[in-house]
């Protein structure tokens, strides 16, 4: 049975610390590290003056440092393992505390929401915090959107960013070509993305598991490649510039006489638009959340979850798996489209670069880290991921390296995500939390 922790399977609990064993392990680790890094770190290549000539120089100090670090690291890991060999996280919470903890848990979501609503008030002067919050909320929304497909319906989608791209380009093209306003384009972008979702849904109806994964990945790549190469419409790699900025229901955020500040008789500030964007994405994200929660109670939502748990049982009970899968794709894609339209209006500029596989992986990581299907978990995971990614900003070129390592460690440490339980959709008398290890992830 799946466990929540990375159980050290290969290490048997030993009564005393075996120094020789630890030392031997560290030596082997260091040796392997030397083998791996001798050429990659020990030698640096660079294209020299003439283009076809490569020059190289050696960096033995760095190599030695890395090998030494691995040696020490291995010892530390072994010692930690020895120290925590009887560590069982399941026993950490005493039974008596479970009641109050559940109350706190119930309060987390409203408290977070309250704080989020107040962010523009608290951080009015801090443009950076506002921008970051908008980014986080965009990913919260994308995470909730993908959650419908992956978390609820159990369909593994590796190309979710395609719908984000469809939404963004729909808005950008409609707004720049036909001069339509944001509020008309937003539903159109959602509808178009949902249409693409259904379009992707059809060929994958019969596919399962990893076949589904690769087709969705291929679909995402196809969309990206078309955006890059269909220069006459999408502007190719240069993207689309001059996308209209959002207006307050027709009132632009400018310093002009008919601008937002003048109409409402307040002093003009560039922050107004940011705050409007903040509440806009907050509203969109909450809409996603609300619709998802409502849908989960409807027959279609229950059908999604039933499909994730057991497709054969689903079919035997007369659930139409075709429409169930297609609606999951369509609903997920629609929210992706909304988020895309928002992204386009916020940035004012979009290019295919923003819609790479990395984004899909990022959103999927948010959903999985959030505990697959837990709304609160997804929101917390989005905060953790974007926050973490921002923290690594100072590391510059090492940022992705550290990010990747964090992703691996996070999975090894908590494969079931941050929120390891889920609320049942339907219950008889009283709600009880279900451990997420009991929830199936679906086979596509």
């Amino acid at each position, binding site marked *: *049975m*799946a*466990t929540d922790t990375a*159980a050290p*399977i*290969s290490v048997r609990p030993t009564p005393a610390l075996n120094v020789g064993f630890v030392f031997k392990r560290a030596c082997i680790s260091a040796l*392997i590290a030397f*083998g*791996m890094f*001798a*050429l*990659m770190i020990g*030698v640096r*290549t*660079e*294209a020299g003056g003439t283009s*076809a*000539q*490569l020059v*190289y120089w050696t960096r033995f100090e760095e190599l030695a440092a890395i090998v030494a670090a691995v040696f020490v690291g291995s010892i530390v890991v072994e010692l930690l393992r020895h120290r925590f060999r009887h560590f069982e996280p399941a026993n950490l919470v005493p039974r008596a505390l479970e009641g109050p903890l559940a109350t706190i848990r119930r309060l987390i979501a409203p408290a977070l929401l309250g704080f989020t609503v107040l962010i523009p008030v608290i951080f009015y002067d801090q443009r950076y915090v506002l921008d970051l919050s908008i980014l986080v909320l965009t990913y919260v929304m994308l995470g909730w959107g993908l959650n419908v497909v992956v978390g609820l319906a159990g369909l593994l989608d590796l190309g979710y960013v395609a719908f984000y791209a469809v939404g963004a380009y729909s808005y950008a093209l409609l707004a720049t070509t036909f001069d339509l306003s944001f509020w008309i384009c937003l539903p159109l972008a959602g509808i178009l993305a949902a249409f693409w979702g259904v379009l992707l849904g059809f*060929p994958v109806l*019969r*596919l*399962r*598991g*990893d*076949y589904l*994964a*690769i*087709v969705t*990945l*291929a679909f995402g*790549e*196809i969309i990206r*490649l078309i955006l890059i*190469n269909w220069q006459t419409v999408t502007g190719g790699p240069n993207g689309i510039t001059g996308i209209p900025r959002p207006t307050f229901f027709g009132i632009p955020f400018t310093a002009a006489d008919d601008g937002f500040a003048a109409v409402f008789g307040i002093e003009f500030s560039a922050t107004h638009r940011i705050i409007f964007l903040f509440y806009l994405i907050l509203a969109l994200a909450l809409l996603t959340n609300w619709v998802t929660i409502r849908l989960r109670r409807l027959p279609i939502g229950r059908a999604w979850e039933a499909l994730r748990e057991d*497709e*054969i*049982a689903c079919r035997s009970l007369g659930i139409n798996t075709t429409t169930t899968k297609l609606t999951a794709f369509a609903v997920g894609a629609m929210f992706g489209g909304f988020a895309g339209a928002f992204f386009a209006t916020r940035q004012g500029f979009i290019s295919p670069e923003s819609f790479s*596989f*990395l984004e899909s992986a990022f959103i*999927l*990581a948010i959903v*999985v880290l959030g505990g697959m299907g837990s709304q609160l978990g997804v929101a917390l995971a989005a905060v953790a991921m974007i926050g973490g990614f921002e923290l690594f900003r100072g590391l510059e*070129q*090492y940022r*992705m*390296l550290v*990010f*990747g*390592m*964090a*992703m*691996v460690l*996070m*999975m*090894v440490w908590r*494969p*079931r995500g941050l929120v390891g339980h889920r609320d049942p959709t339907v219950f008889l008398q009283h709600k009880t939390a279900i451990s997420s290890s009991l929830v199936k*992830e679906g086979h596509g």
Partner: protein
Amino acid sequence: MEYFAQQLINGVALGSIYGLIAIGYTMVYGIVGMINFAHGDIFMIGGFIALISFLIFVSIGLTAVPVILLLVLLVAMATTALYGWTIERIAYRPLRQSFRLAPMLSAIGMSFVLGNFAQVSQGAQVKPVPPIITGGLTLFESNNFAVQLSNVQIIVVVTTVVLLTIFSFIVARTRLGRDMRACAQDQTMAALLGVDTDRTISMTFVIGAALAAVAGVMYLLYYGVVDFYMGFIAGIKAFTAAVLGGIGSLPGAMLGGLAIGLIETFWSAYFSIEYKDVAAFSILIVVLIFMPTGILGRPEIEKV
């Protein structure tokens, strides 16, 4: 006709490289049931190791091209095998009992790590090498169009065929191959019958990585460049090849690799070079609609 023959040759050479990478995907999938997203980056690391060791061998005064080639191949295979082994150990083994998505995300994380490790340690620029093997032979010539078979293409195809023969022998005839097939069928049962599953899985990753390293060397010979980003594109195409052929099936992986190589080459030659990847992915989707488990994949038996 001549043009067609030329494209056929190019497509087969490219397909061989994809096939070699695809085998790594399909083997790992067959035995542990996970998509090893880092495999494309292992291929990239193989290319880098090949480049660096080639530079070193040349600078210490080796001149015989076959010797250099063999040494480069060995060094690349050995080093990359270490990467495969270590990655399995660090990122996948703790998650073996976990649910399906966990190792996959761990693999995606590992792929980022490897890609950026190469970028940080060797720089982001494209690294060109002067053509190592030149020349070739003209098969036939007509209508002022000579059908060329370059020596590199011969080496790529011959190496692939030789390695595949060795590899099929390992899988079909040796103890290790038998263990691997046993683990692929039923890991618990294999363990009960005395198969060291941990070791077998490690060896699967090692062999897969070594084959990816060969693909990396061939790529370097064929295109003369490596860069840190090549792992992603080649990786998803090879994975596409593995799925097209039916994931878990070894001949399927080779067949899928050839198919993807040919589709790409012919599409570039007759239609548009920009949309070659779109064509490859679209054909994958179309094939999967009619054959949901790929060309040679066995249909999954659903049990209640």
